């Protein structure tokens, strides 16, 4: 999976979970602000990502990660 494909996949999963059109989200968007999500919803998104991509994402690696491209950086190391 290329990096662009991965970022697109992350955006699609976030779109599916929170109902915001994927076309309105970009790689550099702060997903907490864009999606207006809280801690519980962030955890739900993380669980979705782990399921869909068959990876484990330790939460401590997500400290400070707020954009889709940074999230892709974390996940790429585990694919």
């Amino acid at each position: 999976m290329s990096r662009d494909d991965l970022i697109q996949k992350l955006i699609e999963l976030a779109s599916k979970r929170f109902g915001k059109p994927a076309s309105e989200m970009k790689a550099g968007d702060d997903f907490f602000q864009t999606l207006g999500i809280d801690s519980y919803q962030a955890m739900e998104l993380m669980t979705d990502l782990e399921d869909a991509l068959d990876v484990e994402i330790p939460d401590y690696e997500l400290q400070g990660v707020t954009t889709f491209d940074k999230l892709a950086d974390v996940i790429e190391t585990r694919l």
Partner: protein
Amino acid sequence: MTEHVTQNGVGTSATAAPERTVAGPATPNVVPLSTRLGAWQARLLRTGVAKRATRLVRDLAPFAGALLDGAPRPAVRLDVPPTDFIGRAMRWSLRGDALEVDLCRTPCNEIGTTALAELELLATLVRAGAVGARALIFYSSVDRGFCAGADLRELHEGLLARADEGGLLGRLRTAHEVRGFIDRIHAVFDTFDMAPITTIAATHGFVFGGGFELALTCDVIVADKSTRFAFPELRLGLVPGFGGIPRLRRDVGNAVVRDVLLTGRSISAKRAHEVGLVSQLVGRGKALGVARKVAEQAARFDPETTARAKAFSKPLPRAELAREKDLFLEMIASPVVAAALRKFVESDDVRPYLP
């Protein structure tokens, strides 16, 4: 509806509390003949007032037997909580063969003094036979999850209040109160752990800290796919204090225990299932339904067989539990904990639950 007084508050029972009952043999002699009361009953029986004598002795036995003869008190259930209960942190009712406990306090069933008082009431009911239930199911009707752990805001406020008192007295009172809380929660969790019936945690969302420890007391964890388990205590400068480490060690290998404990990271239900922590992995929103099926199946077996199988396969790690408790109590007084709690309470992080 009737009110039912708990240690720290008043809950409401949907049905009246059970009447006083006296457990005793069905034969006319309700106390042993060897006792003075028993001999008195036998004399009355011989003189032809059998029915009245039996009633009188049965009524008096629980109160007078021990006083007259120094014998153990008969099994009198004067303080058994109601079968159906609606409290501030939880409610429970008997459904079929299962006693179902709904954790229902927002934001996410944090365990503070209110929840503990109601858990103690539940533990009393379980110790008294769980109203004949063959299974006990814990679940949450709160969206965010099963239970996010100890009530850190309450703990922070308690520590602040004692800090205001200052000096040695304040520190001693803090230590005394925290030990009291921890002793009580251990007593309750040990009761659930050793209950001679099948206990099931039906989980979703956050199962963190004390919530994870509650789930670990259960025989079977049925987790829906949204569940995440974590011990974030190290973030607070603490170790889990409700028996989490020994109970987790009982169920899974050290690689998992140390990973979860020392990184504070959360693991998904899928991962927890893979490592043997979760018994049944189910779709989102399906955990309670599956837990009820587990309870139905458990109820088909002979109760004594179930109790013996459980006692054999799930011994209580008493020594380790005691050591964990001591370690927690040593650490709670640390300034690191006070600072971490203050940071948590004052945080405006959108992810305050995440380690």
